[in-house]
Each structure stands twice: as C-alpha cells, then as structure tokens.
C-alpha cells in the first residue's frame, strides 16, 4: 500500500468516517498516524486542545516499544493498547502494518462501545484503501 500520498478524496472519506463513527459518539479527538510518527489526519470535537504532533511522535514510539515487547513474549503483535486515566483515556488500534488509529475519550463512553466502533471504522478504512 502506498500511503505516502493519500488523495484528497480519500482523506475526506476517512474524515467523514471518523466524524460519523467516533466524534459523534463523544470521542474528544481521533488521530490516524503512521509508524514514523506522521499525522495522516486528525479530527476533534472542536473543544479539545491537544498538541497532536507531539502526541503522534510519542504514540508511534509507544506502539513500536509495545511491538518489540510482543516479539519478546513470542507474539506476532499486540494490535491494541488502552491507557486509562481518571478523566481521559486513550485507545490505540492498529489499522495495518503502517497505520495506527488513536482515540482519546472521557469517562462518559464505555470502552466496549468504543471498541465496537473502532473495529467498524478500521474495517471501513481498509475497504477504502482496497478500492484504490
């Protein structure tokens, strides 16, 4: 997959999926990054003020570390990660070998509900790429 350049149309479609499926649900901020730490796209609810660029760099590093840990225990990969805080939580999920979907959300959303939607979003994004 060549993700180096994503067409404007593809990005708009991805943004729509993210808005429809996650932001509307009450997720504060959704970012798609690549494993090098670049932001592919970022969507938020208009209120959250995260430094998404630093976030992407750290998230890519974090995920790469966890990937290395997976290999150490004989796993192919840990395809998702979840960090729980008092007021906000972060959920990481792998879209494919190169891309990562990150959702930041508060306590009003249940993790299970978010995960169901994340699975759906990832499926839709994969379809979008396969169409190309």
């Amino acid at each position, binding site marked *: 997959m060549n*993700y*180096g*350049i*994503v*067409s*404007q149309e593809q*990005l*708009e479609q991805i943004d729509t999926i993210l808005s429809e499926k996650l932001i509307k649900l009450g997720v504060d901020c959704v970012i798609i990054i*690549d*494993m*090098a*730490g*670049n*932001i*592919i*796209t970022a969507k938020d609810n208009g209120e959250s003020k995260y*430094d998404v*660029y*630093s976030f992407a*760099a*750290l998230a*890519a*590093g974090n995920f*790469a*570390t966890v990937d*290395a840990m997976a290999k150490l225990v004989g796993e192919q990969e840990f395809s998702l990660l979840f960090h729980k805080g008092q007021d906000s939580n972060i959920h990481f999920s792998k879209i494919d070998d190169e891309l990562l979907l990150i959702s930041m959300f508060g306590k009003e959303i249940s993790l299970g509900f978010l995960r169901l939607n994340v699975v759906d979003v990832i499926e839709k994004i994969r379809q979008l790429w396969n169409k190309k």
Partner: protein
Amino acid sequence: MSFINLKDKVVQVKIVYYGPGRCGKTTNLEYINKTYRKQIVSEMVSLKTHGDRTLFFDFLPFDMGKIKGYDIKIQLYTVPGQVKYNATRKLVLRGVDGIVFVADAMAKQREKNIRSLNQLHENLQSYKESIFRIPLVMQYNKVDLKEHGIPILPTEVLQKDLNSRLKVPYYEASAITGYNVALTLKKIISSTVISIQKKLL
C-alpha cells in the same frame, strides 16, 4: 517517508540527529528550541533517564513556512546515543527523510564516531534505505573545546574518517554555544526538501 496531506496542504518532514553517546544531539535540539522559540508552537519532548541521558528520543516540531502553497512541518528527532540502545535507534529511524550525523570532535571519541556511523549504515539498510542516498549532513561538534586545551581531531581527520566516501556537506560546530547549529539545520532542511521534491516530480 514524508507524509503529504493534499487536503490540508501540509508536508511533514522527519529529520533525525544521529551520533555516538554524549556527542551533543540533544544539545543541538535544545539550542534550536531556545533560539527559534517564536516559530515553535509546541514544547520539546524529551524522554530521558534521571541522569539526563536520552532514553528514547527527543522530539521538536516546528513550522518552516510555505513552499508552493504547502505548509512544511519539520519534525526533529534525536536518537539515544548509548551503545546498548540500538533497538531504540532503529525505531526512531523509521520513515526518516534526512539525517544530521553529529560527530564528537574530541580526539578520544574517534573510534566511537566511526562505529556509530557504521551502525547508522546498517540500521538504514534494515529499512531498505541507503546512507549514500538519504540526505545527510555531517556536524563536527565541540570544536570550542580546543580553546580549553582539550585535544580535538582536526577536520581533515574527521573528514577522512567519516566523510571520505559519503562526501556530504559538513560543518564544524559547537552545539553548546550555538556555533553553526542553525547552519547545519538549514542545510539538512534544504537537502531534505529538495530530495522530497525530486521524488515527487
């Protein structure tokens, strides 16, 4: 690989400062962070140990303005220099667009520079990149130590050791005083942006 967002017209460029332990990679970034504070919207991120050694990486993003209507976002990274952290260095090199190799000009560090450069060559190969193709700038750091009577390697020796085959641009520098830090940065940004443009055309 740089990421180009056609919708928002943003190009993200990843530049990594690479080199042996304690050669001054983080100091380079700290100087840039201090001097160009106005252009930098976010905080510099440093993942370090209690002893102030880089554990994972430092990260400094800044905006360079526009080229042909595209916003250029430069992302500077450093790697941990300590020998034992090669796995981490490899992770940071993922998707790199340009590299500054910071060599320690102190005479006693001669061998460490060479070893570090060889390892960079190997690490890039694991991503199917080549040290001969990727935009690269050499920085011979700590030249200010000469005034303090500490033996440092003459530039000719460093050139012979590190740059005889690569033949990339090089600068003597002193990251702590800021001497040639900006020049190194400008050079690597321009080489990298040109290389990205070439790949696209």
